[in-house]
């Protein structure tokens, strides 16, 4: 049940216990217990909402920043990653294989604020060797969800 429960929640974290129990064919108490375990074990780390900010009046600019760093003795990349992820404007930090080391997602209100963050905060960190900033122009699909999906059922209305 664990895998199926996670698959449902990953798509819809607002679903209530009662409905989860129906969909999974188990008792509500079993769902509650399993959810508690999943949270305790740190498997479920949060329940977020996917927002299409473009449709609001709130301005947001998102950038993906490739960062090359020097790993530190005894701590590898963890120390520098922590320095970076502690900034609240940083939304995600990943250690990446290939041409660079860390991929940082940054969200700000304006281009200028992103530029400032990169030049004042990120580039000045001791172990940061270089950065390359890419701005996101449009989101087509995020977290497995197609933004602006056209919902149409092209099937014939009744078929045998």
């Amino acid at each position: 049940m664990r895998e199926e429960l996670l698959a449902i929640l990953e798509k819809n974290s607002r679903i209530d216990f009662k409905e989860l129990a129906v969909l999974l064919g188990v008792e509500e108490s079993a769902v509650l217990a399993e959810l508690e375990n999943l949270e305790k074990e740190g498997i479920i780390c949060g329940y977020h909402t996917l927002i299409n900010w473009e449709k609001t009046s709130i301005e947001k600019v998102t950038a993906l920043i490739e960062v090359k760093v020097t790993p530190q003795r005894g701590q590898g990349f963890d120390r520098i990653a922590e320095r970076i992820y502690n900034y609240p404007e940083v939304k995600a930090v990943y250690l990446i294989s290939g041409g660079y080391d860390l991929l940082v997602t940054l969200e700000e209100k304006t281009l200028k604020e992103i530029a400032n963050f990169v030049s004042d905060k990120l580039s000045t960190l001791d172990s940061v060797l270089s950065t390359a900033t890419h701005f996101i122009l449009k989101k087509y699909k995020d977290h497995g969800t197609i933004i602006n999906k056209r919902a149409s059922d092209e099937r014939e209305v009744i078929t045998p």
Partner: protein
Amino acid sequence: MRNFLSDKVTALKPSGIRKFFDIVSEMKDAISLGVGEPDFDTPWHIRDEGIYALERGRTFYTSNAGLKELREEISNYIKRTQGVCYNPDNEILVTVGGSEAIDIGLRAIINPGDEVIIPQPSYVSYEPCAVLAGAKPVIINLKAENEFRLKPDELLNTITDKTKILILPYPNNPTGAIMEREDLEVIAKIIKEKDILVMSDEIYAALTYKDKHVSIVSLDGMKERTILINGFSKAYAMTGWRLGYSCAPKEITAQMTKIHQYAIMCAPTTSQYAAVSALKKGDDDVEEMRQSYNQRRRFLLNAFKEMELECFEPYGAFYVFPCIKEFNMSSEEFATKLLMEEKVAVVPGTAFGACGEGFVRISYAYSLENLKEALSRIERFVHRLRG
């Protein structure tokens, strides 16, 4: 002018579904629960393989029986799901949907006056296909109290010395009923004793919600008596690709191949290439869809329970078949009234045989959001009828 039309064809009843379709299609904002095909898109890797086949210019006929590679994959698939070996060279035929296989399978074995036993409620084309093949259809009216499974006494009472073949439509459209191993064993025994054949239409085999589907071919001595029908439409959400297949003893397959060869030539080439990918890499996709269907199935059964609408628990396909006898109206009246008053389309059980009277077919090949809205309308409707 003379009447040029065939008496046999003129006498065929038009599909009961057609009539209802015309009413529904005129209602723009109705929610339909009447569709007999998956709501999922064909998994991307399958579509991609079809596109790739077109890009490489694979646009010619294949051999009559179908691409060898596809027949080999079908053989592997039956082996790994049912433990039965079919020779891809002479026991497997790739057809235009499972429907073609039903049609030519019957035509390959029927002589005038032969009887074909058809349990109902079931898919709409068995009876006309039997008639067109020159057979006499003999109907078994399955019972709700048996969860619409075929019982040995029902079969025994119907077999005559003219009986040639039994059609075994499980997992079943429209009821969602399945036949488990114990159910099949007694049927298989009768089939062998009475020396008849069986056409096992297993197009919904991948969609069961109890144990894995058991095919009658996997039972002792049944392979040589069975025309197994399956296809890609339901399991892989590939209805529009029109691709199915039959597995049958080589003597029967040879006759079927002749009809197929003269009438059809071969199944669509693009679809055949795509289907190879479905069988090789599609297991996870099927499982994911099966899981979604199962969640919706549980949701519907729970909703019926809450509104106290009688419905046996179906373990296959993507249909539920609730009983509406308490409202003292015919299935067609119920469906029409539901459509007019709440704009929800369901299919009257009678579209699948007279014994579907008192039931309606509800398809759950729809998103949960869709089902929720439709079910809340049905609940309102049912409460109003009860007063």
